[in-house]
Every structure is written in structure tokens, then in C-alpha cells.
């Protein structure tokens, strides 16, 4: 049975970040996830804090942290260091990100032609953040037979929405026939990305795109986010060289290739730091001794796997990730510890306005103390050696506030610091 200094439950951005920080600080770490997902659904840029009308993440952070229920009330001061840490990690894995708290938000086009505010993004998305020149057009490209990107539709929508600061002089959609795809009977972003990894196919595909481009005018090109996985850096460089215009990736439907790259970068850092990682099995039992968790059991083919640790980091996700569950009786519980959580009454779970505003259920989650330990009804820590990170934390509206990634990395950094604090070190040595 594996024993470790720290067991991390969950392998999204917060779980992986916490695992890396802990392992690099010398702790023995076991990351146990019930599956993969959070990163594979993400657009690959980082949402730090972009509530409506904020000009940069620092301003957004200040506004959000004013609400004492918001995770940023405790964590705002940790965000900048956590972002620097993460940027270093992904850069070391060959996936550099740029941008920071003071980078002004730019409107970046979405696959259906909306815009979202972005200030921190991987190299492949950076060109979208530059101010638009007065004669510069946006050319959205899709590929024949690829059903997850519709450039003409997105272009029409994007022309009708409000852009922050500058906007493209004109927006156009372009459909390109890429080589050999007519022989492929099933085409996802993943398949395309793997095709682009192949240098020979890539050269022919880029040539096909190049000759389809408008002959005149100044353009910036938005391509579906499929520019390679393993050879992504090479694909991006080749595309920039051969197309003759600035270009950026437009993240689309799952599976998100930019998210997959982020996951792989972090996973490789985690394993490189000596952590163990198992996915496929949820926590089914928690052994406790008073206010301490002694061990967590994950499901296995028969019996359970007993994971013993001094500290536990709960990166089990929110509603979408399966970390929080709504019961029929109207209670909200976390799916690992089974604690009742703060959240809206059942009648408010079914708001008609699903995504556009602050849905009440989004704010459901753990209430925690400064060490991110879950609080019991009386306000004292329900567990002394459990730290909650990421979207399992209550009090935020990560869609409207665009704060999920910032909360994930800041809480991961805080939890790692608390878990390897003096008390844990003493126990580890004993």
C-alpha cells in the first residue's frame, strides 16, 4: 500500500500544481485521480481574474478579493508568485506561457465568434492578444471535414460583438481542404494535431493553407487549435514561417489540444519530480482519527487501495469535475469527505440562465480557513490535515469572473506551503 508525505486527490490544474510544488520541495507525493478531464476541457490560456470591465487581472483580483466569501479574499496575495512558478514549470517542459497580472486584457475570438478577455496565454495564442492595426483583418480558417470549427459562422458572429480596445478592420472566414483528410473517416482536433506532428504532412498542409490565403491585405490568421502535440513547438514555428502573416490558435471543442499540452507538460514535471500518479479510481473510503484523516482508500479491481499520508490535498473539482454532488434532499456534499457544503437551496440549482450570469450553484463549495482546511459548521477545521484547492473551493463564480485557473494555482501553492510546514516536516522525520 503506498504511503506518502502527501496524497493529492485530483489531477486538474490545481492537483498537478500542488503535486509538483510538494514533490519539488522534497515531499513524497502520491497523486490519485478518478480520471482525467479538467485540463482536457480548458482553452489552454489561464483565467486569473477577469470580471466584467476589469482592465487587467490585478484589477480583477482586487475587486474579487473584496468579497470575503471569495477564495481570493485569502489567496489574492499568492497569485503572482504562483503564476511565476507555473510559468517556469511549463516553460521548462517546452510549453512557454506569457502575460501577467498587469497585462491588459485583449478580446480574443472564440470558436463560435464570441470574444473573451485574455491576458495570460501559451505562445500559440499570444498573437491574438496584440492590438489590432487600423488596416488589419482577422482571417478565421477552418478545415474541410473537420466538424468542430466553422470559420464563416464564427466570422459573422465576431463582426457583431463588442471588442475591448481595438478590433479587426474586417473579419472573414476561410475553408481550406487539407491533404489526405478525405481518406479519414473520423476527424477530431486530436487527429488533426497528430497529423501536424508529422513533418511531411505538415509541410503539405501549410502549403495548402498558404495558397488559399487572400493575395492582398494585412491579415492576422486564427487557426483551429490543432498545431501539433508532441512536436507543437516545431509546428508553430513552421506555420509562422510559411504563412506569412501573424497567426494564433483558436481553442475549440473538447478534446482541447492546448489543454492536453498543458496536462502533458505538468504531468511530465510531476513525474520528473519523483511523484507517483495513478488515475482511474475514485476515493471510496476515508479513515479518520478525530479531526485527522489517516488514510484514503481508492477503489480497485477488488478490495481498495489504502493511501496513508500525513497530509491530504483535495483537488477533486467542482460540479463539472465531480468533486461536488447535489443530493435529492437538497444538500450539497463533496464526493470525497462527504462533508455538507455551503451552497444555494435546491430551488436555485435550476436557474434558466445557465451560463450568462453568476449561476448560484457555481459558488457552492468548501468554506475554508487560511490554511485552506475545510471548516465544520462551528467554524473550526473539520480536518486538520486536509487542504482544499481549485474549484472545490466555494464562493467564486468562475465562469462570470474568469478566475478558475488563478484560484487553482494560488490555492495549490498555499496548500503546498501549509502541507510542508514545520509540523508536517517533524512528523515526516519521526
Amino acid at each position, binding site marked *: *500500500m503506498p504511503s506518502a508525505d502527501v496524497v493529492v486527490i485530483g489531477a486538474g490544474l490545481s492537483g498537478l500544481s500542488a503535486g509538483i510544488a510538494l514533490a519539488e520541495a522534497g515531499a513524497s507525493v502520491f497523486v490519485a485521480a478518478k480520471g482525467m478531464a479538467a485540463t482536457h476541457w480548458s482553452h489552454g490560456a489561464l483565467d486569473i481574474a477577469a470580471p466584467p470591465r476589469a482592465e487587467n487581472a490585478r484589477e480583477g483580483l482586487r475587486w474579487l478579493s473584496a468579497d470575503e466569501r471569495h477564495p481570493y479574499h485569502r489567496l489574492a496575495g499568492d497569485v503572482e508568485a504562483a503564476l511565476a512558478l507555473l510559468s517556469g514549470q511549463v516553460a521548462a517542459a517546452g510549453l512557454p506561457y506569457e502575460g501577467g497580472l498587469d497585462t491588459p486584457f485583449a478580446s480574443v475570438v472564440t470558436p463560435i465568434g464570441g470574444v473573451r478577455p485574455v491576458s495570460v496565454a501559451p505562445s500559440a495564442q499570444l498573437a491574438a492578444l496584440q492590438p489590432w492595426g487600423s488596416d488589419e483583418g482577422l482571417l478565421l480558417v477552418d478545415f474541410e471535414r473537420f466538424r468542430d470549427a466553422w470559420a464563416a459562422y464564427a466570422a459573422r458572429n465576431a463582426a457583431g460583438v463588442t471588442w475591448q480596445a481595438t478590433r479587426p478592420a474586417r473579419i472573414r472566414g476561410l475553408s481550406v481542404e487539407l491533404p489526405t483528410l478525405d481518406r479519414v473517416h*473520423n476527424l*477530431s482536433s486530436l487527429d488533426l494535431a497528430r497529423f501536424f506532428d508529422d513533418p511531411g504532412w505538415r509541410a503539405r498542409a501549410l502549403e495548402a493553407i498558404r495558397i488559399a490565403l487572400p493575395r492582398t491585405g494585412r491579415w492576422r490568421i486564427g487557426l483551429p487549435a490543432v498545431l501539433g502535440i508532441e512536436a507543437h513547438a516545431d509546428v508553430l514555428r513552421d506555420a509562422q514561417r510559411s504563412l506569412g502573416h501573424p497567426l494564433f490558435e483558436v481553442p475549440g471543442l*473538447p478534446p482541447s489540444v492546448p489543454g492536453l499540452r498543458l496536462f502533458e507538460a505538468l504531468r511530465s514535471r510531476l513525474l520528473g519530480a519523483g511523484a*507517483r500518479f495513478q488515475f482511474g*479510481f475514485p476515493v471510496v473510503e476515508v479513515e479518520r482519527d478525530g479531526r485527522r484523516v489517516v488514510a484514503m482508500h481508492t477503489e480497485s479491481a477488488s*478490495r481498495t487501495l489504502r493511501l496513508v499520508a500525513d497530509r491530504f490535498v483535495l483537488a477533486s473539482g467542482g460540479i463539472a469535475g465531480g468533486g461536488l454532488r447535489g443530493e435529492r434532499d437538497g444538500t450539497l456534499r463533496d464526493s470525497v469527505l462527504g462533508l455538507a457544503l455551503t451552497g444555494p437551496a435546491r430551488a436555485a440549482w435550476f436557474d434558466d440562465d445557465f451560463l450568462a450570469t453568476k449561476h448560484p450553484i457555481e459558488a457552492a463549495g468548501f468554506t475554508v480557513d487560511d490554511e485552506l482546511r475545510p471548516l465544520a459548521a462551528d467554524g473550526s477545521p473539520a480536518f486538520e490535515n486536509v487542504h482544499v484547492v481549485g474549484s472545490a473551493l466555494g464562493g467564486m463564480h468562475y465562469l462570470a469572473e474568469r478566475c478558475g485557473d488563478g484560484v487553482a494555482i494560488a490555492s495549490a501553492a498555499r496548500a503546498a506551503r501549509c502541507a510542508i510546514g514545520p509540523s508536517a516536516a517533524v512528523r515526516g522525520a519521526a
Partner: protein
Amino acid sequence: MTFRDVEPGAVVPFTTDNCIKCNVCNTVCPVARVTDLFPGPKYVGPQAQRFRWDGPPDHSVDLCSGCGICTRACPANVLIAETNNRARAAIVEEHGSSLRNRIISDTDLLARFGVPLAPLVNFGLRNRFLRWIGEKTLGVHRRGPLRPYARRSFGSWWRRRGGTRIVDAPPERTVVYFHGCAVNGFEPDVGRAAVEVLERNGLSVIVPEQECCGLPFISNGMYDHARQKARRNIRSLADYARRGYRIVGTSTSCTHALKAEYREMLDLDDADARAVADGTWDICELLSEMHDRGALDTAFGPMPGPLPYHPPCQLKSHGIGTPAMDLFALIPGMIAIDSDHDCCGAAGTYGLKAERWQIAHDVGAPLFEKFRRSGATQAACDSETCRWQIEDSSGVRTRHPVEILADAYRAGTSLDSLDAHASPTSSDSPASLASLASPDASVAGQSTNEPLI
């Protein structure tokens, strides 16, 4: 058909209702990674399943190798690989099975002829012309990973040595060894190493009546044949399990069949089947658990150098971590390196088939390359067909972890005798082998997950 009409054991395909269409399974599928012939687990699994209740299932599902990574990656708890396996069984039920699949699945029958006729059969297996004939007539790929039959089966060795040596041990000091068909017919050395390591730790070993676990039949969709094997194994093992004996296997594939597949695929979910599932252990899982209790003899001798290790897909489906890595860390000087590769491609009989061999080879290619470039003289892996696939394709001798442990015990024993005869000065020398083998040296053993290259 509604959920209420479904037999209790047949809930597997209903888990596809949980699918949220996120495509995560497609990102991890090793087969879809290398061939466009397989549309990916999402399409042949949850997407196709809703059309399967009344009509015949589509046939592309037959390209699934059954590695199970999709099931583990799914965030919505859909039993994707299990659903696909059942879909294949439905195809087989409707259209029958090829002669080839019936032959390669019936490992017990093959061993009945193969072992007594080993010199003859092995000549055929080694002869390139006959293998070519075999590919053209039967559809068994000429380069498919096969092993020569042993001159003497494990069962025969066991009987000749007199069977159980530590007699009258209580259940908690006894293990029931499920050697499986591969150890019996092809790799009796693995079984001998297992017995040696278990007895070294004071455990009495019982070898009961047993047959092939039936996994080759399950993988090829022949559930009726598999059920016959499974029922006979359960009958033989259940009584031991209920009396508290642990059933230990050296193949993570067989033990996974006993633990999970009898229930999930074959719908064998009675009290006996449950007792067997709950009482079954992979040998490294057991030894690692013993180490946690301080009950494992850790007097391993030094085996300096890298040991590339590939945890098979079936092991990962156990959900028991990687116990072999934990054990390798106890061997002084050994640097075990996790392959960090999803699948070797063999997937039991999948890599033997003429029309699948290339896919299987492409799936494992990065792994073979890593092992080749590691510079190691041997590697380790817990499942037989994976071992053969890796060894044939990488050229690196690949053994079961328990064989490595047996070697490490022998290295420790020979050092002990060296130590006893050594002059007083030599044991003071820090460079002496004896000092490497001191109890403190076990901390020198280390393992790493770092990529090989």
C-alpha cells in the same frame, strides 16, 4: 428496454448513459493513436452503444485491444472498455468466431499438445517458413510474440519436487498460487521464482487444480468458453478464499480476470465469485503489503544499474499503484525506471493476429525504443504477452519482477556466505561488496519515474 429489465450483472453497458461526450477517452486510446481504422473508444463505446440494443453492433469495435486505459481516464465513470468487450462478444455470438481465434484462445488445449511435443512444436514456432505458412493459413502473424513450450510444465515440476514444502501452515501463512496457463506451459521459471520468493518469506505455497483463467476467450468475445473456465477455477479456489487463504498470481492479467472480469464481463457475481475476487492478489501487491507490515525479508543483495520496468495495462486496471516499483526500491543499487508508456500493444492475443500485428507493434514502438536505448541488460514487466512483445521488439531480455527479486535474494545469500569467509580487513573496506549488502544499503535502492531518455 429500460434499466429495470436489465439483469443485475449486465449494468456495464448502461454506464454509457453517464457519458458527457468530453472525448477524454479518445485522447488516451493507444490504438486510435496509431490507426485510423479504429474510430476511438468514444465512438465505438458510448456513441455506438445506443444503437446496439436491438440491432447488430458495428464491427469496428473489434479493433479495440482491451487495454482499458479509456475506462481509467473517463471522468464520468463509464466502463468503456468493458462495454466494448461485451459488444465484441455480441458479434461473436451472432457471427461465430474464426478458427484462428478459437485456437489461440484455448491455451490449455494448446499446452496439452505443446508441452509433450515441445521439441517438434518449438521447431515449428522457430521455423520462419512454417511461421509464414501459419500466417497465410491461420492468420497468426509470423512475427507475433510467441514462446517455445517448456520441456516440462510448471505443474510437472511442482509434483516432482513433492508439492507443498511448508505443511500445516495456517491460512494467513499460506498462499494459493494461481500460476495460469503461461507459467504452466511457457514460463515455468517464473513460477519457480515465485515459489522461491514466497517460501523465502516463510509462506506455505499450495497449488490447487486450475485452468487458464479464460481471459484469452474473454478478449476474443467467446464468453461461453470463458465461463466454463471461470466456473471451474472459482469452484477450485472459492473454498480457500472463504477460509482466509490468499490467492496469489504472477500474471496481472490472470489476477485481473479473477478480480474483475469474471464479474464485469462474464456476469459471475455469486458469493463464490466474490470470495475469489476479494481473496486474489497480484504477487507484487502481496509482497509490498507484507513489506508495509514489516513482514518481508529485505535481505536483497545488490543489483546495481538501471532496470527499465513497464507496468502493463492490466496491472494499471487493478488500481494498486505500481507495487513492483516499490519492491525494486528495496534492492541496493537498483535504479528502476518506469517506462511511462501507455501500452506495449500486445494486449494478450491481439498482437498475434496477422491483421493486428502492425497496430500492436506501432502502439509499443516508443516503449521498445526507450528500452533499447536504456543500455540495460534486462527489463521487467508483470504480464506474459507484454514481456514477450517487449523482448521480441526491443531485444532487451524482459522478465517478471518476481524473477528479479529472486535474483536479488540469491545475490544477498551469496554475499552472506562471502562475508562469513571474508578476512576481517576486507569487510572494513567501504568498497567491499559486503558493505554494499549491509542492511543500511537498502536505502541506496531508489526508483524514479523519470523518462528514460
